[in-house]
């Protein structure tokens, strides 16, 4: 929805918001497409610990927290970096860049060991018993 609103705002020149093009693409490609891929794969891929707790799913939770906070900070700070003289927005934009990268890193750490063959999954389960 956010991406679509930004898409509409892009077409209304009278609004004159700066730096909306990268925000439109990133809310669409990261905020929606990437996030839905990450969410569905975390649920669907084999080897998930089905006991719900933060410690059992800490990398997945970290990916979610970093991605959301990184994107929100980016949406706020990216246009403001272009129009404001305050260096605070620059700092926030840098923080958002690190958060988004940490989100990807956390997701890869969680999902990499779960990209396994059926045989390996059975062996893993057998070993766990």
């Amino acid at each position, binding site marked *: 929805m956010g991406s679509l609103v930004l898409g509409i705002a892009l077409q209304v020149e009278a609004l004159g918001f700066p730096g909306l093009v990268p925000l439109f693409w990133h809310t669409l*490609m990261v905020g929606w*497409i*990437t996030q839905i*891929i990450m969410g569905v*794969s975390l649920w*669907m891929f*084999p080897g998930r610990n089905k006991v719900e707790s933060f410690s059992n799913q800490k990398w997945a939770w970290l990916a979610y927290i970093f991605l959301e906070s990184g994107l929100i900070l*980016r949406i706020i700070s*990216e246009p403001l*970096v272009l129009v404001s003289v305050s260096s605070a*927005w*620059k*700092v926030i*934009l*840098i923080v*958002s*860049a*690190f958060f*988004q*990268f940490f989100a*990807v*890193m956390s*997701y*890869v750490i969680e*999902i*990499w060991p779960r*990209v*396994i*063959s*059926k045989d390996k999954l059975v062996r893993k389960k057998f070993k766990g018993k």
Partner: protein
Amino acid sequence: MPDVSRWMIRMSLVYFLVSAGIGMCMLINKAHPYFPEVWLLLPVHIEFMIFGWVIQFTLGTAYWILPRFLDTKGRGNGKAAMAMPVLLNMGIVLVALSTSGTGFSYLALSGRILEALTVILFISLHWKRVVSYSES
């Protein structure tokens, strides 16, 4: 999860990580232009994100998750399926190299042809797997 899917998904995760790293450097550069040349990597960032991550991950997962053939219980021609990650990744690398100013104009064209061949191969391998198990 079959080998083809594991190769494609793991490769897609590598592209995702590399592309996110490039994106992080570009965003930091937007706040503090310490190294403006990083913007030359924008086409690589886009190529890796769209073809390397989103498309490759989707194709790899679809190969694993779509219904298998009822008669053989298999996923069709395994060798043709293994050509998918090979062609796609060669295509991605060629397109990425074409943006580096090597002067080889045919790199991007060859890369796009390989990517298109991957999609044609994917469609031909999966068309008959998009089925309902219902008799009607």
